[in-house]
């Protein structure tokens, strides 16, 4: 920058210097994705409703009323009707969001952390370690995800903790695969060689050179799994493998309301509609994130 007196530099700062960095760029591009913003707002509202369910929900979601069973949508005092035990559907849907979101997001998050560690280490160190790890991953990858989740949950037994464990195991292999393939590409880059030549150890290189380049695509992929995870988690509860009555959870609610489809069909399908809306919102947000972070498939 010896040429500081140059009129060009003096009048306009160089665009590189003014660039607010990669993440600011991602945020700016995400701001232009109107659909993704709308989806994000929907998710935020659902999350807030779940957190503040005690204040948002009109009544206690477990309070039964044998005289007011299966009320239609729009009945006085029951905005979205009442279920097969006379419990307020709106309150149950709001409280149900807690467990349904938790059971969908937690497995993906844990699998994101563990899968990244497994995939990055396998891709970076290569050799026999890579073969061993990736072949094990291939075995789990050889199961259709629904089948693997049900097999594990079925063997471990019903319960929320077992469902979360099963789903975590289901999502580690696909995430590890993506992390491994991206790391294998990054490993051969000149800047990694440069870091190695300047004496950096493997863990420093992973932290400084590899992680930043790998985590983006893996993160985008992981967000695309949340909708699958929510559908699967609720599906496990639907089969009786997840949450137990009377806990409000969307999949379980759908299951207990199955017999009500002949009496109040539109009340019976409400929990599924909640899963559908949340799942669409997560998919749209993930798509927006993918184009904002300029990740290719």
């Amino acid at each position: 920058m010896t040429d500081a007196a140059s009129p060009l530099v003096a009048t306009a700062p160089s665009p590189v210097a003014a660039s607010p960095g990669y993440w600011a760029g991602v945020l700016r591009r995400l701001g232009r994705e109107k659909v993704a913003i709308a989806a994000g707002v929907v998710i935020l509202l659902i999350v807030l409703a779940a957190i503040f369910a005690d204040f948002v929900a009109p009544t206690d979601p477990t309070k039964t009323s044998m005289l007011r069973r299966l009320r239609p949508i729009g009945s006085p005092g029951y905005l979205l009707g009442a279920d097969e035990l006379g419990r307020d559907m709106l309150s149950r849907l709001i409280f149900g969001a807690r467990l349904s979101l938790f059971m969908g997001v937690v497995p993906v998050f844990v699998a994101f952390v563990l899968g990244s560690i497994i995939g990055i280490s396998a891709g970076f160190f290569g050799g026999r370690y890579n073969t061993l790890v990736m072949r094990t991953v291939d075995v789990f990858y050889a199961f259709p995800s629904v089948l693997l989740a049900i097999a594990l949950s079925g063997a471990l037994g019903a319960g929320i903790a077992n469902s979360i464990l099963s789903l975590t195991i289901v999502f580690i292999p696909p995430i590890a695969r993506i992390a491994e393939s991206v790391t294998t590409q990054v490993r051969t880059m000149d800047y990694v060689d440069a870091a190695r030549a300047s004496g950096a150890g493997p863990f420093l290189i992973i932290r400084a050179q590899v992680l930043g380049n790998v985590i983006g695509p893996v993160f985008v992929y992981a967000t695309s799994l949340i909708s699958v995870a929510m559908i699967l988690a609720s599906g496990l509860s639907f089969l009786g493998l997840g949450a137990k009555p009377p806990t409000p959870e969307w999949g379980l609610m759908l299951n207990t309301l199955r017999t009500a489809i002949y009496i109040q069909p539109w009340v019976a399908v409400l929990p599924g509609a909640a899963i559908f809306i949340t799942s669409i919102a997560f998919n749209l947000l993930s798509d927006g994130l993918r184009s904002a972070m300029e990740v290719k498939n």
Partner: protein
Amino acid sequence: MLRYFLRRLAYVAPVALGVSFFCFLLVHIAPGDPLTSVLPPDASAAQQEEMRRIYGFDKPLPVQFVLWLWQALQGDLGVSIATGRPVAAEVGKAVGNTLVVALLAMVIGFALGSLFGFVAGYFKGSWLDRGASLIAMLGVSVPHYWLGMVLVILFSVQLGWLPAGGAGPDGSGAWKWNWEHIRYMLLPAITMSVVPMGIIARTVRALVADIMAQDFVTALRAKGMLDPGVLRHVIKNAAPTSLAVMGLQLGYLLGGSILIETVFSWPGTGFLLGNAIFQRDLPLLQGTILVLSMFFVGLNVLVDIVQGLLDPRVRRQ
């Protein structure tokens, strides 16, 4: 081609072994003594000891695995606790039922998915693209078991056009190829077709959009080729990958049919699996999952081989 074939086989053999080991372990990761899964709860200590020896649970785990695998290879998957019948026979009966629905679902899903995907990719950026992409997005986001319930409400409860569940008018589940029986298959198949429809539509859209942007398409147009001719070239290029995705989706349908079969009481492998879980019938659970996952592994190999036959570039990788 032979070398490619052998290479795929060499790759898949250890995976198949791993998959069967996982299935073997299912009984052992279940809480409690694996013996409780094959014995009634009121069995005496002497009976327990005897069963332990017969089932080989007193031997080390690797030995047990080899014995179990050897029996499984001979078609012996053990005995169901709930019914006392051989697991292999139970699974064999159910697989056929699941296969017919999954195949019909696949045909529907592939036809609609390719159509939507093709239109979206060919007219990328138009309102047609946006419409088709929206349908594909809804398809991959829908909880399919819920969609099944909605379809039952619409077509069985309200309109009364199609039966709500079961596999036939007599309730026996004996499958026949006539309209009375096919009616029972329609709702489960349509429900099952939605997710593969969405996935195939997305794949085909990306493929077609990619091919349309390539130089050879521009060259064809520059030489004066009209749309039908260009279309033929695009289809030819998109076909191998689309077929591969379809093959894998069939495998996912077989494995993922459990929720839909539960909704429609369809007597297939999913229904069997549901019963096995409900009654904690671990040999049945293990056997069903082994058969389904091996089917999926086999399908993967088949897809690779067909792809290798259709597309020489795949063979050389």
